[in-house]
């Protein structure tokens, strides 16, 4: 592979594309299934129920404190599949590369994806790549789809929550969003906060084993905890109240949020999980979360109730109750 940048020709299906696939993608991913270079991967499947999810990743900048778009792309889809209670197995990857994108950056991203796959125990089995003209692409876009096997009897859903259920959060809120915003031009500030992007399939499996009647899992990505809880409250027809003092937030995340006028409940997370379980299994679920390296700061943060279906409340540190509102559009830094 002699080129150091992506050229339009790399997307045209000819020998340059073959070079890109062989010398970059297949080489970096180190997957047997990919080496065969068939159009479709035929794979053993240990069960009869499939869970499948897909997501596209367009984050900018592609490299940010603690991670990159590649790690996000694998962890995000692994987590989405895992929230259904399935064991994630196989990932497909689709790339849209902008003409001029440095191959060295591409390799870094692919290595990141490979490492995330190894950590999660999943395999990239098929992929695709296209190249668009300079100015039409923002560097790199990645789509990943994942499939996993769902055991019999597992039925997790945001519409399963009942009054009295407890809401658990696997760790500190807002890390990813603040890490990203700290790099944005015009808003720079110094922080040691890094993205929390992480594969949480093992954490989920542990919690499910300890709390078999868990109602649902969901990762509070875009829109943060507020979006996740509002969606679940509406789907289940319950209200959810969060105890502000029990929500773990790092000091620096709090500081940055206050400086920019952000609501930390609306800031994105990439390596956190919300789990809602029956009250009787809450302590066991919490203990299981804490056994995972990504769940050390886990906490029970709230409860579902019958009244005011669809609403999410915060019981503030100061002792009053207010609504936890969902994000409308983008969260913008403010001075007022």
């Amino acid at each position, binding site marked *: 592979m002699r080129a150091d940048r992506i050229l339009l020709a790399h997307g045209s299906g000819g020998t340059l594309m073959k070079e890109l696939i062989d010398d970059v993608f297949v080489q970096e991913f180190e997957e047997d299934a990919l080496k065969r270079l068939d159009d479709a991967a035929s794979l053993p499947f240990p069960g009869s129920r499939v869970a499948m999810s897909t997501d596209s990743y367009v984050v900018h900048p592609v490299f940010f404190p603690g991670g990159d778009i590649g790690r996000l792309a694998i962890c995000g889809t692994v987590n989405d599949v895992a929230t259904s209670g399935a064991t994630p197995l196989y990932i497909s990857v689709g790339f849209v590369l902008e003409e001029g994108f440095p191959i060295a950056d591409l390799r870094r991203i692919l290595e990141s994806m490979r490492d995330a796959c190894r950590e999660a125990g999943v395999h990239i089995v098929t992929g695709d790549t296209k190249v668009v003209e300079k100015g039409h692409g923002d560097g790199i876009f990645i789509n990943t789809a994942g499939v996993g096997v769902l055991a019999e009897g597992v039925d997790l859903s945001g519409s399963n929550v009942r009054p009295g259920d407890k809401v658990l959060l696997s760790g500190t809120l807002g890390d990813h969003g603040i890490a990203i915003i700290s790099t944005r031009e015009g808003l*720079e*500030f*110094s*922080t040691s906060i890094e993205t929390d992007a992480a594969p949480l399939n093992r954490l989920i499996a542990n919690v499910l084993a300890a709390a078999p009647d868990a109602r649902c899992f969901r990762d509070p990505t875009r829109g943060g905890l507020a979006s996740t809880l509002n969606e679940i409250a509406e789907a289940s027809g319950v209200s959810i109240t969060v105890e502000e003092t029990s929500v773990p937030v*790092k*000091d620096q995340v709090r500081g*940055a949020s*206050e*400086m920019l006028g952000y609501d930390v409940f609306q800031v994105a997370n990439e390596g956190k999980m919300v789990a809602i379980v029956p009250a009787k299994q809450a302590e066991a679920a919490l203990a299981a979360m804490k056994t995972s390296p990504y769940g050390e700061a886990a906490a029970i943060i709230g409860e579902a109730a019958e009244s005011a279906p669809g609403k999410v409340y915060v019981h503030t540190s100061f002792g009053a109750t207010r609504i936890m509102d969902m994000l409308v559009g983008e969260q913008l830094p403010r001075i*007022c």
Partner: protein
Amino acid sequence: MCLAIPARVVTIEEGRMASVDIMGVTRKVSLDLTPEATEGDFVLVHAGFALQIVDEQYANETLEILRSIPDFAEDEGIALEGA
């Protein structure tokens, strides 16, 4: 229009700037409005500028007075729950 938060001045930089710390996050702010600020001072930061030095003595005095409000109310013959 009033979002300003207390931050600790860590180092004075050249060009009437300072590096401040907000719960572990650091940023450079201008001291154009508070040229007298020195390391260790707490300042109110608004849109990249220090507006004023936060007076620690006043802060403590205010809190002390506020903490004693239930006593005032008691003097007026009102019983407070959990006081």
